[in-house]
């Protein structure tokens, strides 16, 4: 419209050239100093009044001690290759059709298996071989076929799920082979704290990588159960939450929001969809000055009349 186009042109021309109008005194350093003082008072005050959360980390030892049934069930699943991690796909293993995709786009497979994890070997068999007194069941397991191993772990998993309170000590008799002995030995090892060290050190003195410990913990229900009780799981707004009554990463609200609504909520490729959407939205925010409509909203919704009310009043 011609009525709008003229002021727009004036406005753009004014914005392009140096301001030739009235000035006001401005002290950059003074403003920065006042800002630092005010923010400093706020930071110290908030810290003194509210502090910060620090819920103790859990360990494989505390898991084995607090929830032995869950620990044994998880160890059995790792041994049988039926855990979530065992069928995760890249970057941990090669599981067919396990990756999240959008049509033919399969970004997850691009990395290949860069953090290889064999759940039976890395979480159960390997750690047990480090014990001074190796369980005899290890030899039986090593000498058996894959088919036999699968039959044993499947039978034992079923039996555990049917046992009262999933208690490994109350499982009925069955053809479980060396599996109960192996999982019990691992449970006892974890209860001493030895498994924490073995899983994280990877035969090295130094340790900075906790991938295997966290992934093993995540395959059980104890870890996620604690997270759920602290309102930290994905369906509870996930990573933007913090333990206790703290604001957490509230700036991730939109990222967390998509996981709460359809079609993302129940999509098998929800992570890929949400991350892709957020990348697109971030790109759109970055390019707002060039996007018709979005760049014009500030003209149509006159919030600027409030911001520059003194200017408009005196114009």
């Amino acid at each position, binding site marked *: 419209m011609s009525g709008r186009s003229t*002021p727009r042109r*004036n*406005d753009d021309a*004014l914005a*392009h*050239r*140096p*301001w*030739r*109008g*009235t*000035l*006001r005194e*401005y002290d*950059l350093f003074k*403003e*920065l100093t006042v*800002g630092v003082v*005010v*923010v400093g008072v706020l*930071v110290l005050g*908030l*810290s*003194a009044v509210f502090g*910060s959360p*620090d*819920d*103790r*980390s*859990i360990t494989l030892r505390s898991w084995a001690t607090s929830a032995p049934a869950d620990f044994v069930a998880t160890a059995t699943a790792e041994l049988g290759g039926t855990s979530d991690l065992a069928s995760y796909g890249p*970057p941990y293993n090669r599981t067919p059709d396990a990756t*999240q995709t959008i049509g033919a786009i399969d*970004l*997850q*497979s*691009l*990395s290949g298996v*860069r*953090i290889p994890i064999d759940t039976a070997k890395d979480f159960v068999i390997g750690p047990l071989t480090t014990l001074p007194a190796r369980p005899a069941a290890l030899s039986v397991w090593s000498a058996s076929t894959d088919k036999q191993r699968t039959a044993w772990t499947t039978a034992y998993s079923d039996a555990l799920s049917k046992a009262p309170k999933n208690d490994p000590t109350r499982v009925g008799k069955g053809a479980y082979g060396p599996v109960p002995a192996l999982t019990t030995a691992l449970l006892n090892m974890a209860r001493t704290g030895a498994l924490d060290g073995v899983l994280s050190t990877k035969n090295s003195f130094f340790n900075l990588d906790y991938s295997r410990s*966290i992934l093993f913990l995540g395959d059980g229900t104890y*870890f996620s159960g604690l997270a759920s009780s602290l309102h930290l799981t994905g369906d509870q707004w996930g*990573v933007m939450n*913090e*333990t206790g009554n703290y*604001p957490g*990463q509230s*700036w991730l609200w939109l990222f967390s929001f998509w996981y709460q609504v359809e079609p993302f909520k129940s999509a098998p490729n929800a*992570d*890929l969809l949400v991350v*892709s959407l957020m990348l697109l939205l*971030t790109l759109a925010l*970055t390019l*707002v*000055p060039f996007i018709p409509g979005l760049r014009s909203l*500030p*003209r149509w919704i006159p919030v*600027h009349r409030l*911001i520059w009310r*003194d*200017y408009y009043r005196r114009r």
Partner: protein
Amino acid sequence: MSVEGRTTETPADEPSARTWTGKSRQWLLRRLPPEKLLPDDQPSYVASWIYVFGIGAIASFVFVILSGIVLSLNGPLWYHVSVLGHFVNSTHLWSVELFFITMVIHLWGKYWMAAWRGGRALTWITGVVSFAVSIVAAFTGYLLQTNFDSQWIAFQAKDALNAVGIGAWFNVADLGQIFMWHITLMPLAVAAVVVLHVILVRMHGVVPPLDAAESDAQLRSTTPSLIDTEGDAR
């Protein structure tokens, strides 16, 4: 454009430089002369509380860095066992929260001011990039808490990163990797983008009000000294 206006302000008696260093100095002085870098006046329309939040974000960032340095000096486990360490950790948390609060208000303010006008698009872009980089920086900080929260965030966040194929290189359960990202790479990245953003703000000046016109009173009664400056420029 302001930059073009300043081009002719290069001292006439300074010969055109022939070295890379001299050319760089002259280019920098043309683009960002001292009176633009450290101004002691601003256009009269720069008079709103919304302008406070940009400086508030920078002030918060100062406290993020200072508290982060103290935490770095003592290592990531210190705050679990020390009352002073816990307090410093709290100041780190709250300065980060204030950093984001002020930055988001600043961003929204600039949106409603359409502050990208007049060749300021790169200023807007660097602002959004600093916001995005800050989110990654804060995320690595949450992973570095070495407590239950960081354990769970590491377990949960791996899926999103793996889904887009970067989890293999940016491994959220690798404390050593995350430690280095948080205390070196990300602070450098945030600081670099923020500095670039502030320099661009100083170079281009604060955007005038929407619909401002030459007939406005603030433009009719111009400052003599500024007229002289512009006159000299011509």
